[in-house]
């Protein structure tokens, strides 16, 4: 009995313990959901400070979203600004905190789609942040893994705009299926089917 009690106490104070980590993660998740809820209500009330907060939280994500969709740096900056500009004029469409991600990414996705439609012949631009480690220092399996990642990156860039957006929203921007579907402006079923098509296409290209 004493041993059990001692274990419990140890577990309670050990922040690295998996249960405590899970508790912390849940707490963080709840807090972020609460923050998103109040931010949404504040935005719907038309508060300028809420718009500033939204920019702080999302501008990096939206910029990288544009880069990952294949736009170059300058165009990504312009499209990020345009996305937020459109967002200020569509605040009325924002329903609740859960819909915040889907709403903003949907606006950004539409801005990107319009750009590609206007500039049909334009090639996609690559990101510059990914470095393959030096082969003399790295182990063989790490090199192989990085080559696969490079292949996968190129394969994603070769996908059609629709399928590329599907992969970027769910796997790279890490939105849930529901949020990604909302952002893509389709039903969850349609989004899952697109995701399957994209995965099949990628499997063929990455060895």
């Amino acid at each position: 009995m004493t041993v059990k009690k001692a274990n419990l106490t140890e577990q309670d104070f050990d922040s690295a313990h998996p249960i405590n980590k899970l508790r912390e993660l849940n707490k963080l998740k709840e807090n972020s959901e609460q923050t998103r809820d109040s931010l949404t209500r504040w935005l719907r009330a038309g508060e300028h400070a809420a718009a500033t907060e939204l920019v702080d939280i999302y501008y990096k994500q939206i910029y990288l979203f544009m880069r990952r969709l294949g736009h170059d740096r300058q165009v990504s900056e312009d499209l990020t600004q345009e996305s937020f500009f459109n967002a200020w004029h569509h605040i009325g469409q924002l329903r609740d905190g859960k819909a915040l991600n889907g709403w903003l990414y949907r606006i950004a996705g539409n801005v990107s789609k319009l750009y590609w439609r206007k500039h049909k012949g334009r090639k996609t631009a690559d990101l510059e942040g990914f470095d393959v480690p030096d082969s003399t220092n790295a182990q063989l399996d790490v090199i192989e893994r990085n080559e696969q990642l490079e292949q996968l990156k190129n394969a994603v860039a070769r996908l059609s705009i629709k399928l590329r957006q599907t992969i970027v929203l769910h796997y790279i921007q890490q939105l849930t299926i529901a949020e990604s579907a909302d952002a893509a402006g389709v039903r969850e079923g349609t989004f899952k089917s697109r995701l399957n098509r994209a995965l099949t296409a990628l499997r063929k290209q990455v060895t």
Partner: protein
Amino acid sequence: MGIEELKELLNKLPDAMTEPVPQRLGEDIKRQIPHRLSPHRVGMDTINIIIDLRINKLAAAAAIIITIVLCATFLGDRDSTGGGVLQDSMLLIKYWGAADAGNISAGRSKYELLLSRGEEVVWYGDWLDPKDGNAVLLQRRLADGIYEVTFVDGHEKQVDSEELIKLLARMLQKKTK
């Protein structure tokens, strides 16, 4: 390549497809935020634009109604616009009636957001008189002895603890009367 292996590889892409984001971008976007954000409702937007031009609410309402009536008369189709005039008048009445409640609701959202960010805020909205525009809706502690108070009509002011006590006492006196 197996589907699980591909998914595992895809989960590593966020780190592989990233780069530094220009810092000034956030500031550039913030500079473009409109002075007043509002949900897209045509009637309300028109009223808000006129209010933003610092015109009295009554004058704004009168201007809208006169414009609508003039248009209706000019086009000579009173029946089809009669309903529209009534709807806009109802909208204006609703707007005036809901203004106090709207201010408190906006204040509440602000309070919750500040609270979730861990700031020291106190909410008075549950017991104040919503018609008293100078009643304190919430207080936020900025530094030692300095507070930012938000009033029911939405304006904000930085006060010291002495002035805050005076404001709260005045509010309490009005309430007990």
